[in-house]
């Protein structure tokens, strides 16, 4: 189960690893989007009825695996492009400006989306949230959980692979260049705004996919589940794990999850006069600060990724310096 939850964190910030901006609100916004689309696509009426319908449809799914598959794929196919589009749109005004302006704008945007979702009832049932169909109803219990886990693991692996390939590609180089020195990159004729737009789009898409998975895992979608705090948690995972290194977010997610579960258990053991949850947040915050100050690279600091195959390099250099070698 850990893996399913961790999966949510994973793809979101794959892009963040590069792009110093951290794909901020992208996390909250597009995750919610993915989840929302799920709600819309399959519920006739919201509010009081959505859970009812969800159960009904789930019963049907129990009978027909194909239905389940479709119910999973369609929202995914809609959510991801939509999220990518929205991600770029939301950042357009600030793409040409400083990173933290962009971050603020994105955060504002995600809050707006949340407010709209919360208040405009036909969308996701306002504060009641929307029930989500259980697309795995056709599998019986242990197999069901297992397949969910496998599914999210696959997604995570896919996202990670994509991230890794991108990071070692010329595009990855470009992003790093922009991060290191925007002016220099622009001086070399690279279209900075466009690169940022692409990074944003990719990150948003991944986040949407994560959102869809999350919605299925949770069984319901509630706008208030996706606040800036959630985005912050994702950023925490990246920072602690290590930006710029594909292994980083993995580590970060693992660390956070471990911490989270530990807190869940330890809660009963600590007899304090206030809510222990508060303490856990304080610790998290302090942890982040400590990491940034002591180990800014995170647990897995950036290494120069090999964009060219190592063997080829050795052979070429070998040939050049020793003409006798064929």
């Amino acid at each position: 189960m850990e893996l399913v939850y961790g999966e949510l964190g994973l793809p979101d910030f794959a892009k963040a690893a590069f792009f110093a901006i951290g794909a901020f609100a992208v996390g909250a916004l597009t995750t919610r989007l993915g989840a929302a689309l799920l709600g819309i696509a399959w519920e006739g009426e919201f509010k009081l009825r959505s859970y009812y319908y969800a159960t009904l449809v789930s019963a049907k799914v129990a009978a027909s695996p194909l239905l389940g598959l479709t119910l999973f794929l369609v929202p995914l196919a809609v959510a991801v492009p939509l999220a990518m589009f929205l991600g770029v749109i939301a950042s357009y005004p600030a793409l040409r400006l400083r990173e933290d302006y962009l971050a603020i704008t994105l955060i504002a945007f995600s809050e707006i989306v949340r407010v709209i979702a919360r208040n405009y009832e036909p969308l996701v049932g306002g504060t009641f949230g929307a029930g989500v169909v259980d697309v795995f109803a056709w599998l019986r219990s242990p197999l069901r959980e297992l397949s969910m886990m496998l599914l999210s693991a696959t997604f995570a692996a896919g996202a990670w692979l994509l991230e890794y390939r991108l990071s070692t590609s010329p595009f990855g180089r470009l992003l790093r260049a922009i991060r290191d020195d925007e002016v220099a990159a622009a001086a070399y004729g690279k279209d900075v705004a466009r690169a940022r737009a692409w990074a944003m789009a990719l990150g948003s898409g991944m986040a949407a996919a994560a959102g869809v998975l999350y919605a299925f895992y949770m069984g319901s979608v509630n706008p208030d589940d996706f606040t800036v705090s959630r985005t912050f948690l994702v950023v925490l995972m990246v920072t602690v794990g290590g930006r710029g290194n594909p292994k980083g977010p993995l580590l970060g997610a693992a660390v956070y999850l471990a911490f989270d579960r530990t807190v869940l258990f330890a809660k009963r053991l600590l007899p304090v006069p206030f809510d222990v949850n508060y303490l856990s947040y304080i610790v998290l915050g302090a942890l982040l600060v400590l990491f940034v100050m002591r180990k800014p690279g995170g647990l897995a600091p950036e290494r120069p990724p090999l964009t060219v195959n190592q063997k080829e390099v050795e052979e070429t250099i070998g040939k050049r310096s020793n003409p006798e070698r064929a």
Partner: protein
Amino acid sequence: MLDVLAGALIYSNLLALLAVGLSLALLTCRVSNFAHGDLAMVGVYAAYTFSVVAGVTPYASIPVAFAAGGLVSLLAYLVVFEPLRGRADLVTLMVVSMAIDMVIRYSLHVYADLMQQWLKVYTRLFMFNDFLVEVAGAQVPGVLIASAVSTVALLLSLYMLLYKTKLGAAMRAAIEDPNLAQTLGINVKRVFAVSWFLAGALAATAGVFLPFRVMVNPDTGWSMLLSMFAAVTVGGIGSIGGSVAGAYLIGISETVLSYQLAGLGVSTAYRPLLTFAAIICTLLVSPRGLSGLWSGKGWWIRRRF
């Protein structure tokens, strides 16, 4: 309508004080300080505690709030932001400020719980009791007078400090170019420390006025952040005077516009949309904000980014 205007003014006064503090943090350490809203809450709880313990009206606790907010802000600066100044990139600084916000905010939650137990008062969703004042035949809420007076007084004092004193000149110099200021013998760290103290103090004072109008709990500061950032953005990032102007603009438009729209059937829950729209418009149309309009005149502090 009169009440709406009164509310708008009070809100704008608060925003002005908050935005100035945010600006100072931005100017000195280049950090978009997400913890700034919580400093206001620190002020609230400090004032509340003092007024309960000493049995006085919260208005009398303002100096306590002032000191408390200043101290917390100073602490954040000394422990976190000064070491990171110039070393960490903008986004990291912002993320760190979010972490600080978590620490402060949840510490406040803890404090609220403890205070509730020890002092036997409600510490969440509480309000302060206000009194009405007769002004030109109309009943005006006391907090309007108090906040207006405080805001004007504090901003004026800030202006005097920055422009009429040596310390102020040092502050401006350090903000404009820390390295150069340092070579000229200005103790940049000390001067920035003063700025941060003031920023926190202003925020805390602003906070004290909040419970007179709305119910507060430790998260209220966080929810006001969007408006604060909007005020700073619209006013022009890097300009204190701009932040003040922006604050009034945002404050008044937020309250008045959402009131008008409510008349048209749009829920007031959509209020953040207006703020967001303001940020977007400013960034698109005139990224330098209001201060871009008077930029040639060098009125207030500006920073070369």
